[in-house]
Each structure stands twice: as structure tokens, then as C-alpha cells.
């Protein structure tokens, strides 16, 4: 569409009541109401909220890809970016996995099923689903960073024959902070190789203790040149994991990682998410390692 034709539509839209509605829906700042269907408590500070839009039409037209995020509004608390944590193949609802870490997320944790929040999006780049077809995937997550990766895992579980071998390496500070424990059995049943690690164990812990990089042993060298690694977690973890993946033989073309930045708009205007010349909200949050250069300022 040319700029001129957009302007003509705009001016038509300005007149008339039906038109005003169109303009509303074209206003990228206006959230749509969504209802909390279900809440799963993952850890003391993390819960997964199953959501759908109140407007049926919104639900029908809503689609997203793993790795993309939503701008979440909670009454009086402003907005925060939150990744979508459900499979993109699911159509009637989607989920957000949220850690209680500040004002908005705290308010979110006080909500109950039936409560309403505002959502804009989806925004940002996604993990490359098409490129992932038929390839072995090594998924490395740390802490709440497992949320967008869960969206990938669920997509893989639903279409096991679309992907090669899928391995998940997931670390957190202690066993109490590992999310998605109740569903990991079903990931394994779908053929996903799951390995867990914590910085500090408690009595019942049966898996490894250490940093997530300790799981990246020679066993996880790429089997084929085209194997892909997907990473999400705190900046410092990302740095060390990528370093290790490169040692293991993953090329910078085949490593995907997410970056986290403060965000206000989500679509490239407010300037909060600058990372060198990139805007993380539109050029990311998912980046190919080869796009990133030095990783010092993660």
C-alpha cells in the first residue's frame, strides 16, 4: 500500500462511527482485553497464565511464533514485555509464564482466573521454525528464560516428525525455581531429551549440580553441520553458553539467542531497547549469533 492510499484511508476513517472503530484497531498503542482462563503455579515466584482474548474475532485472527512477546497491561501498573510460552500450533488460547519480579508482575500474581488484563502484540522476531524443520535442536535455557523456549518445545512435541533429535538443557539457581517440572514427563514421552542442573541442590535432588554450561559436554557436539542451538536466559549465562557452544563446534550461523532490554513500546519507536544500532523489540529479541558481534554488553 502506498503512503498516499494509507492517508486516504486514514482520513476516511476519521469520519463516521464505524470508521472510528477501525482507527482504534489500527492504533498500535491500544491493548486488547484478554481473560485469564487458568493459572498454573510453577514455582514460588513463577506462574503460567493461560489466556484468551475476550473478543472472539481477536482469538480467530491471533497468531504468533515461538520467541515472540506480548506487551502486558495490568490495571494501573503500565506495561511489561512477556514472552509467549505456549505452542504456536495451538489456536484457542496461549500462555504467558511470568516471574514475580517487580511492580507489574507482582500485580499479575495477585490475579485469579476470570480476571482481565490488556495485551498488545505479538512483537519481535521468532525462533526460525522453518529453518528448524528436520534439524537436530539443542535448547539451552536458564531460569525464566525457559519460557519462550517452552513454546519451541511444545511445538516440537506436537510435531515430533518435523524435527530431528530435540535436547533440552535447563538450569536454575535451586530446584524450587525450576519451571515446568510437572510437564517434563510429557516432553520426555514425546522424545525430548531433558537434562536439568541447579546451582545449589536440596535433599531430594536427583540431577546434576553446577552451571548450565557444565551440561554442555562433548556429548552435545553438533552431529551434523546443520544442527541448531537455541539459547535464552540471563545475559551472563547467554555469554558463557554461546562461548561453550562455539567451542563445541556450532557455527555462529546456527546459534540463536534472545536479548533482554527495557521496553516501552515494543515496535521500534520509544528507543528504550537499543543495543548498539539494533532495536531489540523489532530486530530481536531472537538473534542469530552471527548478527551480534561482541557479547560483552549483554
Amino acid at each position: 500500500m502506498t503512503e498516499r492510499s494509507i492517508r486516504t484511508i486514514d482520513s476516511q476513517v476519521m469520519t463516521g462511527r464505524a470508521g472510528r472503530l477501525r482507527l482504534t484497531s489500527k492504533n498500535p498503542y491500544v491493548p486488547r482485553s484478554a481473560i485469564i482462563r487458568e493459572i498454573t503455579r510453577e514455582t514460588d515466584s513463577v506462574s503460567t497464565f493461560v489466556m484468551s482474548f475476550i473478543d472472539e474475532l481477536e482469538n480467530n485472527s491471533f497468531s504468533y511464533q515461538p520467541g515472540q512477546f506480548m506487551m502486558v497491561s495490568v490495571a494501573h501498573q503500565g506495561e511489561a514485555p512477556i514472552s509467549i510460552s505456549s505452542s504456536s500450533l495451538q489456536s484457542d488460547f496461549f500462555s504467558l509464564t511470568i516471574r514475580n519480579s517487580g511492580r507489574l508482575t507482582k500485580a499479575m500474581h495477585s490475579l485469579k482466573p476470570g480476571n482481565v488484563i490488556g495485551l498488545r502484540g505479538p512483537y519481535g522476531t521468532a525462533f526460525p521454525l522453518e529453518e528448524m524443520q528436520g534439524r537436530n535442536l539443542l535448547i539451552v535455557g536458564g531460569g525464566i528464560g525457559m519460557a519462550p523456549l517452552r513454546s519451541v518445545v511444545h511445538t516440537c512435541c506436537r510435531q515430533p516428525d518435523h524435527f530431528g533429535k530435540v535436547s533440552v538443557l535447563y538450569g536454575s539457581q535451586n530446584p524450587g525455581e525450576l519451571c515446568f517440572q510437572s510437564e517434563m514427563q510429557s516432553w520426555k514421552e514425546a522424545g525430548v531429551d531433558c537434562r536439568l542442573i541447579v546451582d545449589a541442590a536440596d535433599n531430594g535432588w536427583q540431577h546434576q549440580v553446577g552451571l548450565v554450561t557444565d551440561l554442555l559436554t562433548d556429548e552435545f557436539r553438533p552431529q551434523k553441520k546443520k544442527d541448531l542451538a537455541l539459547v535464552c536466559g540471563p545475559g551472563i549465562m547467554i555469554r558463557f553458553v554461546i562461548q561453550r557452544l562455539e567451542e563445541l563446534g556450532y557455527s555462529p550461523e546456527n546459534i540463536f539467542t534472545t536479548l533482554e532490554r527495557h521496553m516501552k513500546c515494543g515496535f521500534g519507536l520509544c528507543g528504550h531497547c537499543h543495543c548498539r544500532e539494533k532495536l531489540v523489540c523489532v530486530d530481536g529479541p531472537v538473534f542469530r549469533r552471527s548478527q551480534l558481534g561482541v557479547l560483552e554488553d549483554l
Partner: protein
Amino acid sequence: MRRKQWILHKDHLLPFLRKLRKSRSLVAPVRNSYGDTMYTEMNDLDNESIELAEQPQNSLKSFFFPQREKLCHYSVDEAVGDSAQAYRFYPSLPESRAVVYFGVRSCDMFAVMYCDTIFLGGRERDVYYDARRRNALFITLACNHPFENCFCNAARTGPYLEMGYDLQFTDLGDRYFVEVDKARGREVVQQWPQFFVPAGDDDRQAHYQAALESRGLFRRQVHVDLAVQLLDQGEEPQALLAELSARCQDCGGCAFICPTCTCFNIVDQPLSDDRGERVRTWDACTFDGFTRMAGNHNSVQIISQRVTKRFYHKLRDDVLRHGRSSCVGCGRCVGMCFGGVDIVRFIDGLCAADDKRSEKREDGHD
């Protein structure tokens, strides 16, 4: 061929503006009672006087992108009986008024074009900016006398514009040389032909002469291109940035006064338990909280790098993203910052360090 150059006699300026004001609001540089010259919406052409000899202290930024703007109001209704809880947003778009901006300086016009790229050229159109911008008419004034801190010649945004305006006026003493660029400018000339006479060869000669003289009058030599080149080559003047950051008092003045600093914040302002407003306000990347994230993790070392983002954004990131630096050389931050943490100080420091290095290299050869 459509004629593009006209003459408007100075006696005709006010009558011409009066005509324009019939169907539009008028914004022009006006000297207020404090003695400040500001771009101001004029309500009374008889008693307010247009001041074209001073640089307006503000830019046009706030006319399209106000310092505080309500985006929506929202309501929160608790569930009662059968009706579920509701949380709704009602956008409040500004009306799209027709406004003529008169006496706009070249750098300020250039800044509007930059803001257009940001607010209208990206993935989403900013409908608030668009509403204010859509019916704007720009009559710019070429600069014959650059001001003390100006370096638009080095930033390549002036002193005369080659495009982007609707009409560009050049002061030739008793008359204005008028150039037409955009369709809206042509329409104005067509609508009020009584004010415009075709420019002759003498006028063209005088215009050429004025443009030439103006270029020779800049008092500052600011090496914008060299600074851009050094940053592009990966130069990181740590000591200079640390020194400037230490002097920064975190007031945000440079970003607020800057015609191309467009970063903003969005916050909710509750009005009662069940309703409130979502507003956006200007933000500055020099502020402490600008990049802070969960867990108080900050990707910017605030003490030593507070001002890095602003300079790098203008001189490196925008070159990579939009093909040119976004400092338009208006010099406002030079006048604004009492700590001397302005972009000229940064460019000078960066280039001086480079000079020293090349001197050293040459000494080494000897």
C-alpha cells in the same frame, strides 16, 4: 515547466500570513515577554511580533510529539453478579488540525524529516504523531546569519535547504526569494497568486550570493563527518566518555531541547481505583532508569557511560540504521548544558584524540 522560484515583497508578508491563517493555525518564532524567542502558536498577528532574527530556543518537536501526551484512558470494572470483570482502553487521538509553521529554520525542518522516519516509517505508524503532522505546512527560512553555536553546515542540514520544505524563504533585504518543493507549497502559491511575482535573474543572483556568504559565516568548525567515521571504525573514546559522564548532572536537558531526541516513556497514571490514564512522556537515555531491567540488572554502566548512548545513537547507530547522523547541528545542547556535556564537546574530544594519535604515528616515522 512549473515555475519554482518567486518573489514575495516584505510588505506582503503579513497580509499573506493573514490569508494563510484563514484556514489554518499559525506557528512562528515569537519573542515573549521574557525576551525569549520561541516557536509559538500565534493568536493575534497585530499584537504579537514575529522574530526572525533570533534562533528559536525550542524546536518544532513538541508540536508533533508533546512532552506529555495522553494515549488512552482506561477503566477497570470489578465483576458484579453475572457481569465479568472488565478492563478497557479508550484511545484519545488528537484532532488533525491544519497548521502552517512559518519561519522554520533549516535544521528544524530537517529534524521534522528525521522524526517522520522514526514515527511514520517503521513497523507501526504512530497515529498520534501522524494526526498532528498530517496537515502541517512548512514555510522555512534559509539562514543568512548562522548563530553562535550552529554547525548545520557540518551536519549537512543547512544553512539552506535543498528539499523537504513546502516553501523556503530567503531574505533578500526588501523581499523574500521563495522556492517551492512540495505540492502543498505549490498549492499555496496557486491559491494566492497576488502575493507572488516570478523571480528574475537578479533575484536568482542575489539568492546565490546570500547562500554563498552564509556558508562563510560559521564560527564553529565541528568535524561531524570525521566523528562519524571514527565511531564507524570502532573507536571507543573511553576516557572522554567517562569524563563527560562524570560531569553530567542527569537533568535530561540536552535530550529535551534536542529536535531529534525522540525516546519516550509510557506510564499509567491512576485517577481513581477504577480509572486512569496511560500517558507518554519524553524520556532521556541519560536518566538512571532508562535501561534498568529486572533484578536491577543494567546493561549500561551508569557512572562511566551515562552519555555514551546519546552520542553513539546520533553519530553511529542512526548512520547504520537510517543512513545519516541524526544530529542536525542546531547547537541547542551547547547552549543548554551548564556542565559542557554537549555533542560538540564530544565530537571535538573524539577528533582531538585522533589528531594526537596521528601526530604520534608521524613522530614514530621520523
